[in-house]
């Protein structure tokens, strides 16, 4: 088991924004259980702003903490701002991640971006 920062332990033990938004405006999924981690982000968008962000995660402690942190970081941001959240930002906000867990922060950012892009695509079509 990896050595985690207090921040990671906090987000792991008390994850924020767990769940799935019914009738979400965007859905993003990454990973699969074979490679050990799987995340699903659902978002609610209002006036170009992420009004709500929720996640479901199958994965290790880092994956859960990353999901929770990403959801918190994204909430209330504009879509453009949220799209700029990088894996490095996430790791930094968590007071760093063990080296062999850094890929988890990629997954978290990716899942969020996928959800946003899903929303943007749907919206494009609607327009």
């Amino acid at each position, binding site marked *: 088991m990896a050595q985690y920062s207090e921040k990671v332990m906090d987000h792991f033990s008390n*994850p924020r924004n767990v769940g*799935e938004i019914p009738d979400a405006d965007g859905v993003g999924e990454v990973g699969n259980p074979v490679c050990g981690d*799987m995340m699903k982000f659902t978002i609610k968008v209002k006036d170009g702003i992420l009004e709500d962000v929720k*996640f479901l995660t199958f*994965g*290790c*402690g880092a*994956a859960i903490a990353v999901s929770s942190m990403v959801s918190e970081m994204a909430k209330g941001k504009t879509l453009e701002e949220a799209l700029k959240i990088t894996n490095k930002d996430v790791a930094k906000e968590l007071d760093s991640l063990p080296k062999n867990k850094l890929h988890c922060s990629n997954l978290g950012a990716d899942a969020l971006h996928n959800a946003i892009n899903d929303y943007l695509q749907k919206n494009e079509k609607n327009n």
Partner: protein
Amino acid sequence: MNAVNLDNVAATPVDPHVLEVMMPYFKDHYGNPSSGHELGEKPARALVEAREKVGDFIGSNPDEITFTSCASESNNMALKGIAAAYKKKGQHIITSAIEHFSVLNPLRTLEKEGYQVTYLPVDHYGLVDPEQLRKAISSDTVLVSIMTANPEIGTIQPIKELAEIAKENGVVFHTDATAAAGYLPLDVEKLKVDLLSLAGDQFYGPKGSGALFVRQGTRILPLIEGGIQEKGRRAGSENVPAIVGLGEAALLAGERMEERTKSLSSVRDSLRKQLFSGITHLHLNGHPDKRLPHNLHISVEFVEGEALLMHLNNAGIYVSSGSTCTSQALKSSHVLAAIGLSPELAQGSLLFTLNLENSVEEVSYIVERLAETAEKLRRMSPLYQKYLKEGS
């Protein structure tokens, strides 16, 4: 509730009596057993006695025992030493897909040197099929190495049957008994094995203590060459305290085998029963009966092992997992893959290895905490949510 340690697969505490017996050899009787004078006499005698105890423990002559520093050394010595000694006779070796890395990795090295290695598959219980062994043996086969029991899924192999097949074909048979020693009666005469590896820290002996049984008449080259300690089979100043501790641990394990296995398996069985009645969607891995008495291996569906471990750890419960994420090498367990467990279930695997301090009183606490943890993690698991919707 105090901490509950159910992760004894790679480490048991040293028995207080064993430690006591070891103590004088650190400071008072520190002499070199090979030295000519009185200071070496006590250590030399202690080595003789320890060798007898370990010999008795597995039914061998004392002089068929070589002391090593750990089971990994015993396994490396067995495989490389037999391969080198029988090189002219043949260069084919047979093993199973679920051996410990201290068997598999030396074999990979031998493969690079030109040896052929056959990795026998196992069934979904983790059992090697004797008929498959028989078919795999060729005129070029010089060594078969199959573990006595698997430390992860706990499955006990039909060693006697397998060793007999090797014997019929004039092939040397090695068994890695590291996970079994102390938990199953072992008798090299009955089992008909030619080599057997074990380590003391698996059954309340000290770390740094291991042994390799080599049947008289079996040729073997040393791995650690130098002085004539261990009759030239293993150089290096004898680690007297560790060897004394191994001997005493073997004596105790032999004497108390029945009592210990009874007590361990009763706690284990109670844990198993309560877990399966208290938590849904669990899978038992390994064989239902042919398993080590202190071993329980399950998969918790829909969740990942490291996350389970962390919550349990916070509750003072220590277990291990075959999940990719808990392995330092970030590899999933080759054993779980070999028994055909799906990657999801492998990710959610939990290994309970009991020690003698675990009691039935702890069981309900463990079950409650694991139930809570599973519930919490499943609530956030996309796989579980999908299952609830689709009932896959």
